[in-house]
């Protein structure tokens, strides 16, 4: 009796979760199918009609996209912004994280508390002053400008994460390395970085996705020649409805990279996002 009821309950739970799963999948499936349909078909009916008429589906929109100079340029800009940002954040934060964890310098504690406090500072507050500053330095509208802004606003979390991770290292390990006469630089390269690899990987993935997906910062700091894919697509949204054959494959192009990264590095990704959620 009890077993029957439990079995029935489990069936209901399964059914409920299947429904939720389908609800989660549908918008994505809709985008993908829309990206495979011609503008004419889209004008005639919803993407679900393609399920009954698979003849509507083709990769024509994608081949057109690959010939679209604006999209291609902005795709490369996205790469040129997110890769250097990721490398810089990881390197700068690893150096600082190690110093905050194991080296002695004046005002170490208060400075680190400042970093913790900066964790939640919204990027919005930086937009205006940094735009003025970059204007004076000639960085406004350039890729290095966008990168620098991202690096600065990625640092509090990155330093916080790495400092805490490095602080867990066994003290004996570092002492032994110092006894062997290693310089701090050598210890950092040979010991700290290899030991910190899991944290560095999580940070790198999280940071990469954060910047890859950014629109707000680039919207302000990039000009038309340095703008990433998100901004390029955003500028085409105004005619929404008439240009789904460009927007849908474009959006798919922009999300496929992070989704592949997500599935390739699930564990690191989840850890990175979890830890990064304090931002």
């Amino acid at each position, binding site marked *: 009796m009890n077993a029957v009821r439990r079995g029935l309950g489990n069936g209901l739970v399964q059914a409920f*979760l299947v429904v939720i*799963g389908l609800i*989660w*999948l*549908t*918008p994505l499936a*809709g*985008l993908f199918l*829309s990206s495979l349909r011609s503008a004419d078909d889209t004008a005639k009916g*919803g*993407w679900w009609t393609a399920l009954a008429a698979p003849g509507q589906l083709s990769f024509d929109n994608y081949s057109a996209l690959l010939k679209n100079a604006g999209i291609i340029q902005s795709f490369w800009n996205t790469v040129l912004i997110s890769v250097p940002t990721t490398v810089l954040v990881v390197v700068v*934060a690893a*150096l*600082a994280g*190690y110093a905050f964890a*194991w*080296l*002695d*310098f004046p005002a170490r504690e208060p400075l680190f*508390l*400042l970093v*913790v*406090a*900066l*964790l*939640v*500072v*919204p990027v*919005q507050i*930086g*937009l*205006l002053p940094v735009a003025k*500053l970059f204007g004076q330095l000639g960085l406004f509208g350039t890729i290095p400008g966008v990168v*620098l*802004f991202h690096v*600065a*606003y990625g*640092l*509090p979390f990155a330093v916080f994460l790495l400092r805490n991770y490095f602080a867990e290292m066994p003290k004996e390990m*570092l*002492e032994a390395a*110092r006894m062997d006469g290693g310089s701090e630089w050598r210890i*950092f390269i040979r010991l700290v970085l290899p030991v910190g690899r899991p944290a560095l990987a999580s940070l790198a993935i999280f940071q990469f996705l954060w910047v890859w997906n950014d*629109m*707000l910062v680039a919207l302000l700091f990039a000009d038309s020649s340095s703008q990433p894919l998100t901004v390029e*697509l*955003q500028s085409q*949204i105004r005619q929404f409805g008439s240009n*789904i054959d460009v*927007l849908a494959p474009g959006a*798919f192009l922009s*999300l496929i990279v*992070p*989704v592949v*990264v997500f599935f390739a590095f*699930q564990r690191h*990704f*989840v850890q990175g996002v979890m830890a990064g959620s*304090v*931002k």
Partner: protein
Amino acid sequence: MTATTLAKEASSAPVAPVASADRARRTRRRGRIIALLFVLPALLLLGALVVYPVVFSVGRSFFDASGTRFVGGDNYTEMFRDPATLKAIRNTTIWVVVAPALLTGLGLILAVLVEKVRWATAFKLLLFMPMAVSFLAAGIIFRLAYDEDPDKGVLNAAVVSVHDAFAGTSSYPTARAREGQGLIHGTDGSYRTSTAVAPGDSVTLGLVGVLPKDLPAGAGPAYAAAGRSAAPDELRGVVYLDFTPGGGGRQGEVDRRESGLPEMKVEAMRDGRTVASTTTASDGSFRFPGLASGAYTVELPASNFAPPYQGVSWLGRTLVTPAIIGAYLWIWTGFAMVLIGAGLSTLPRDALEAARMDGANEWQIFRRITVPLLAPVLTVVFVTLVINVMKVFDLVYIIAPGPVQEDATVLATQMWLVSFGGGNNQGLGSALGVLLLLLVIPAMVFNVRRFRRSQR
């Protein structure tokens, strides 16, 4: 105890005290310089691009739009006077009140339920995946899903098909009667016979305005049915399209080639009350058997002529904010579920087992044991979401169509619009930025305190 002092102690032991003290000081200074070189890049970037802007924005918020005149707190009072900014404050409040609570609740329910199935990992991956998708892509996805046209937006397609399954489709939105041919147009859109009819009568109700190609499949000629006479206690008739394809028919009469109108609702009314109702057959005929004698009117209710249901205006003025919150749920539910799930796996198994042994049912266990034990995790998830929700920008910017943008606006989008998007009032914009900062200060204090506690 720091690394350099350790190094000093280690090296100083075997050497003479005076020389070693001197050397130790030098090593110590050298160590400090190296340490500063390690932190300097980070401190410079943070100082120039984060700390300085905060100070600058606070100062700038006390100046007017052009930045030349000191206006004190005017920008802050303006914030609560300007209707657009007030709307943004109101909408951000809605976001903060609704989204984190919904997400935490949904995440909790799913985290508990997903433990009961074997494919938990696959489910978690699927729900977590939207976290990898940019707000821009999610925005395009949901612009598409929320499209008002049921032939484009999947949500309205679903709503319309559910609605039509329950309420039925009206078959003849364009049909109407000619003036003076026996049918009166009611103010509610219905049609009824202008003269009273009695059992034993047979009526013909002619309508026009339906294109022959719009007739339901299977509609047949009404001529034969119109010729049948009624039994003494029944009222019968035919609803037909008073239009002969190719011309030649007479108005007001059922000609040989004129079609009946099937699936039409018909009601028999007496003294203003519906006493019988039916639906026409494929030749447009209907009959009300077993009527008591008396005077009746035959009515074609308005539902026959209602315009087709078009679904919900998701991105209209009233629903746009809930709709965007819906998209936000799609992105963040997986996060809440996985984080709460991680907390769930640390719960003491024995407590749950003991309760089960004592005969507690699943609901009692959930309510009395799981939720209280999870309270700290739930708080962290909730607080995290509140911080993120306050800063929501891209989704609103992308999903809300131009004309409704001002109805959907939140603090972050308003700050953008005021400073860069045409408003060009950087004084007010800075004040809005400072307001955003003030709103996250509790979280800042919370973080700093939690960190200091963890260091002790």
